[in-house]
């Protein structure tokens, strides 16, 4: 049942131009950046040769690229998640799902899975760029895997948060703006760390950026994974509760 809803979700996304345009825009911009980073690498290469323990092509080309990709996706994911539940509420199609023999969790997980399929396509397309490096050089495969996993977890978190905020309102614009606000806040929450010495560790633990950074650098830390999974599960449960609660109002 979850799969039926997920298929409808992804189908609806690719029926409208939105999904195609998002993929095209992201791919174009990041492709250009990939090219610029690669160009940069060629300039630096003679100097790098003389150093010991040199950073490899993965560190110089891919890690910065994926860092930028994460920031761009932080701005774009709200546009993708905003419609998922808000639109159904506005068009009053939610009652189709509610009066079908499904649980609320089936509905929410179906929506989440549908969005994740899109995310999966998106990241896989992005990862084709680093993979193309195998043609000329030998990137660090372990690091690439860590980056891939890191992006997947990060975007899953964006999706879960976006899904929750979409369930709170009928208005897609409100859903998009509030999702963007929450994501950006989580991204920059550790900026205060420098002046507030006590709260520092808490704030930096909450920051999406910190956890993402370490995965980009190839550090596979279970506390990072736990952080992402907690956020994902937490917001999905909140979404289910929200939809359940609306029947009581």
């Amino acid at each position, binding site marked *: *049942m979850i799969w*039926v*809803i997920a298929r*409808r979700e992804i*189908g*609806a996304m690719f*029926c*409208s131009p939105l999904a195609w345009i998002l993929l095209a825009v992201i791919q174009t911009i990041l492709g250009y950046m990939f090219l610029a980073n690669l160009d940069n690498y060629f300039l630096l290469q003679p100097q790098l040769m003389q150093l010991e323990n040199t950073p490899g092509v993965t560190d110089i080309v891919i890690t910065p690229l994926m860092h930028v990709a994460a920031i761009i996706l932080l701005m774009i994911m709200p546009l993708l998640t905003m419609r998922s539940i808000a639109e159904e509420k506005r*068009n*009053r*199609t*939610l*009652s*189709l*799902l*509610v*009066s*079908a*023999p*499904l*649980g609320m969790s089936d509905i929410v997980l179906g929506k989440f899975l549908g969005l994740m399929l899109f995310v999966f396509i998106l990241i896989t397309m992005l990862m084709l760029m680093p993979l193309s490096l195998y043609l000329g050089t030998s990137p660090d495969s372990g690091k690439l895997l860590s980056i891939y996993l890191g992006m997947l977890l990060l975007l899953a978190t964006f999706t879960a948060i976006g899904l929750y905020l979409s369930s709170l309102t009928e208005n897609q614009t409100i859903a998009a703006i509030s999702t963007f606000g929450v994501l950006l806040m989580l991204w920059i929450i550790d900026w205060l760390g420098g002046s507030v010495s006590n709260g520092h560790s808490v704030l930096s633990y909450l920051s999406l950026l910190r956890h993402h950074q370490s995965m980009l650098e190839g550090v596979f830390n279970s506390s990072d994974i736990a952080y992402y999974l907690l956020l994902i599960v937490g917001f999905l449960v909140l979404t289910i509760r929200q939809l359940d609660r609306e*029947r*009581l*109002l």
Partner: protein
Amino acid sequence: MTEALVQVENLSRFYQNNRAINHLSFSLKAGEVLGFLGPNGAGKSTTMQVISGNLAPSEGEVSIAGHDILEAPKAAKRHLGYLPEHPPVYRDASVDEYLRYCARLHRIARGQVLASVDRVKQLCGLEDVGRRLIGNLSKGYQQRVGIAQAIVHEPQVVILDEPTVGLDPIQIREIRELIRTLGSQHSVILSTHILSEVQTTCDRVQIIRAGELIYSASTESLNQGHESSVKIALRNPVPPDELSCLAGVDHVEALEAGRYRVFLSANSNPDALVTAAVQQQWGLYELIPEQQSLEDLFIELTHHQEATAE
């Protein structure tokens, strides 16, 4: 369990402090078409939303085919097809895609989806629009898609909330036909504010007002119990007394100049009235049989309640 398919007991529903339904109890037997009547804001839609599981009841119980809607929602909803006030259709999907999706949502096995969709398309007259986007269809066709969605999985109970709103007269007749067909295999709860619709399609009628059930009877007994009346217009008006002493006439109500509503006694026809009109040259130029017993009853009941409420 009892043989009642839908059992509503002591149901109440609040919106904040507003009581939309007040201790409503009724049941629906297998193969019955139940008409839900009431003025706007009487709680018809709320009742249907509660039965379909879209709203949780504040008090009381609803069970469908023996399954409680709160305790075993999935089992209860398997036996249920629901068309809300606004048909829940995806404007960006084609009719075929949409109905296939609904069929899958209602757990129809993959191999039988196409057959089920074809069946309801034929039933609802949608064969010609299968490939069109729902958003481009007229309101009437969207309504039909909504009905098709509610019956694609052949539920035992079909709930239709104002299914004929926004349709043209021909479509209305077709939809009524469809509802009668449904009534032979499924139990149907139908809400409407068109009284003649209830009279032509329903086995039983319930009138609710301000969330309370104020009348419930079978339409058959309704049609029998009331005397019939005719409206007549005379070119040469006569005093009403002269009419009421004719054979077969119960009493007469004078309307505007030259027009009368003549109530006939049970099992009689206006023969004597017409004969007298011709013999005495009253200039009878209009004779309209009235079958508005339900409307009278409806107005009487809702009005009466209003008066006592004040």
